[in-house]
């Protein structure tokens, strides 16, 4: 492509850092110099400029608008990173969250004036209990990993209450999300990993061998991070319970099974629910998380406060242990009452979908992933046999001897206007390409993506490694030097040395 005089590429404007656009004296608001006054800053008045660039208001607006136009997100195009990062956020949710009755209330208001808000938390809690079959839910955890912490703290409280303080180990499959071992370690447990079998599921014999009277819990993701349903889960629950341990399920992938099965029927003791993954709330820089954690009968007494209860006078918050005769709460996990704005969006989604709509959404998510698996299985290398759940996992065997890596392949996808899928995770397969289309993508979008991936795979196999090494070509910046960025990061802009010629 020919270079332009301006350095811009069509209407894609080459944008300098805002500090590089500094023209001293330019300002958005021109205030008159104040009269001299005696300040009361105790001699700490600022001595010199603080280093903000001088810019007019239109310059600032253009700068941030141009930056935002370089963004790529779920609202721009296909995004096979999937629900981990972002899936479609229905605009109805946003509309509901902006209703003044929800948006303008304050957690310190008298409870009689926020009955609607409390009812909303209570209603969402009832839905989450119904969808999982669990008797209790802690609503306050502020994100998925916080929900994990809530679950493990609840398990620890239950063991301690029974005097079983010798339980010091937590078992985690090797394909688990990194937050699982981190959570267990944060709760003071030592972590042991359970290997996977050649079907990508937990090796039941290896699990049995590791169980004992010193095991506090198992943390299992289902469907797991390979996008596979752990079909021996009921037996896993039985052996875990026989050993006196509790069964924590990482609910990150609940979006693949919601409305299809009740996790209580699987023998699970607690599970967090990422509201962004299953119930379409914003995430990935778009909004705060929320990780309500459902609890079994055995763990329910230890749930953190506050809880919302309903009695003849309406809805009421229980915020103190002495007001909660039914339990032995482990304390508080978060200020106020949870991520209320996220609750509004999640309940809005649930009510607009209905129970049948939620079951259809999980079915469509699984169908879309299997469509990718079926249409790409002959040119890529699926890591495991058989159908998948909501995400399709491939590894880099199809690139063997081509000189092209998973990273190169991902960069070439960017040139095609597709955000790359998850790469190099899970670690249990080599050079992973993990694709999660989610339930909202149409067949036409998936067919477009499939055509791109097939053409790129054929190009790689035809020996055109150079094409991939050069990618991306069409982006505002070419391939970034990730190694240099990690080894010698430049985290702060510094002015260039004085330009002598300009003086």
């Amino acid at each position, binding site marked *: 492509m020919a270079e332009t005089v301006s350095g811009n590429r069509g209407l894609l404007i080459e944008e300098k850092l805002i500090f590089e656009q500094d023209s001293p004296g330019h300002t958005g608001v021109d205030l008159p110099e104040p009269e001299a006054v005696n300040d009361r800053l105790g001699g700490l008045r600022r001595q010199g400029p603080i280093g903000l660039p001088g810019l007019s208001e239109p310059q600032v607006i253009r700068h941030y608008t141009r930056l935002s136009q370089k963004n790529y997100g779920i609202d721009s195009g296909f995004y096979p990173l999937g629900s981990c990062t972002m899936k479609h956020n229905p605009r109805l949710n946003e509309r509901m969250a902006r209703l003044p009755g929800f948006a303008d209330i304050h957690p310190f208001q008298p409870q009689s004036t926020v009955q609607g808000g409390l009812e909303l938390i209570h209603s969402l809690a009832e839905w989450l209990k119904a969808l999982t079959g669990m008797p209790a839910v802690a609503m306050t955890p502020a994100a998925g990993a916080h929900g994990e912490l809530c679950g493990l703290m609840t398990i620890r409280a239950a063991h301690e209450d029974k005097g079983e303080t010798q339980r010091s180990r937590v078992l985690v499959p090797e394909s688990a999300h990194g937050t699982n071992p981190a959570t267990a370690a944060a709760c003071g447990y030592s972590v042991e990993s359970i290997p996977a079998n050649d079907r990508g599921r937990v090796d039941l014999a290896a699990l049995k061998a590791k169980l004992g009277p010193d095991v506090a819990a198992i943390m299992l993701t289902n469907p797991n991070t390979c996008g596979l349903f752990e079909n021996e889960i009921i037996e896993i629950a039985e052996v875990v319970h026989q050993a006196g341990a509790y069964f924590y399920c990482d609910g990150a992938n609940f979006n693949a099974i919601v409305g299809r099965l009740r996790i209580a029927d699987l023998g699970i003791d607690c599970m967090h629910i990422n509201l962004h993954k299953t119930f379409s709330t914003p995430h990935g820089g778009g909004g705060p998380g929320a990780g309500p954690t459902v609890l079994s009968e055995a763990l329910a007494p230890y749930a953190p406060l506050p809880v919302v209860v309903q009695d003849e006078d309406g809805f009421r918050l229980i915020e103190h242990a002495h007001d909660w005769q039914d339990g032995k709460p482990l304390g508080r996990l978060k200020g106020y009452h949870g991520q209320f704005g996220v609750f509004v969006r999640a309940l809005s989604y649930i009510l607009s979908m209905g129970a049948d709509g939620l079951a259809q959404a999980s079915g469509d998510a699984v169908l879309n992933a299997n469509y990718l698996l079926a249409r790409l299985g002959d040119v890529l290398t699926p890591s495991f046999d058989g159908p998948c759940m909501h995400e399709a996992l491939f590894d880099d065997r199809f690139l063997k001897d081509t000189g092209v890596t998973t990273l190169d392949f991902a960069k070439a996808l960017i040139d095609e206007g597709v955000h790359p899928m998850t790469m*190099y995770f899970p*670690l249990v397969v080599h050079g992973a390409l993990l694709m999660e289309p989610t339930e909202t993508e149409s067949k036409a979008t998936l067919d477009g993506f499939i055509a791109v991936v097939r053409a790129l795979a054929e190009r790689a196999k035809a020996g055109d490694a150079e094409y991939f090494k050069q990618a991306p070509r069409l982006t505002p910046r070419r391939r970034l030097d*990730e*190694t240099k960025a*990690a*080894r010698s990061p430049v985290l702060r802009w510094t002015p260039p040395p004085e330009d002598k010629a300009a003086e």
Partner: protein
Amino acid sequence: MSETRYTRDHEWVRIEEEGIATVGISEYAQQQLGDVVFVELPAIGKSIVQGGEAAVVESVKAASEVYAPVSGAVIEANDALTDTPALVNEDAEGEGWFFRVEMSDPSELDSLMDVDEYTDYIQGLE
């Protein structure tokens, strides 16, 4: 210099003086990790157990634990890796060593693979 021995987790260990083992990650591990960008080394004096976590290596692709191939006390760490983690890529089984440990049970070396066994082992992984 004694022969180098290897673990199934791709650490190497070599006895360069009586009772002292030098530990690093294998050439194969280095290739699999890609460009190494950070290494966390054990503190001097830390006691480590065979198979237990001893260090952390982070590359552009992944962060991984480095497990102790033998038990003992750490007596020296390769501080050069702090500023120049690239040494692990350039010379994994030489200048890119991680730490030295005073072995508490040299017989543990017998459970590790020699270079031929390790070569067969990694070929089986391909």
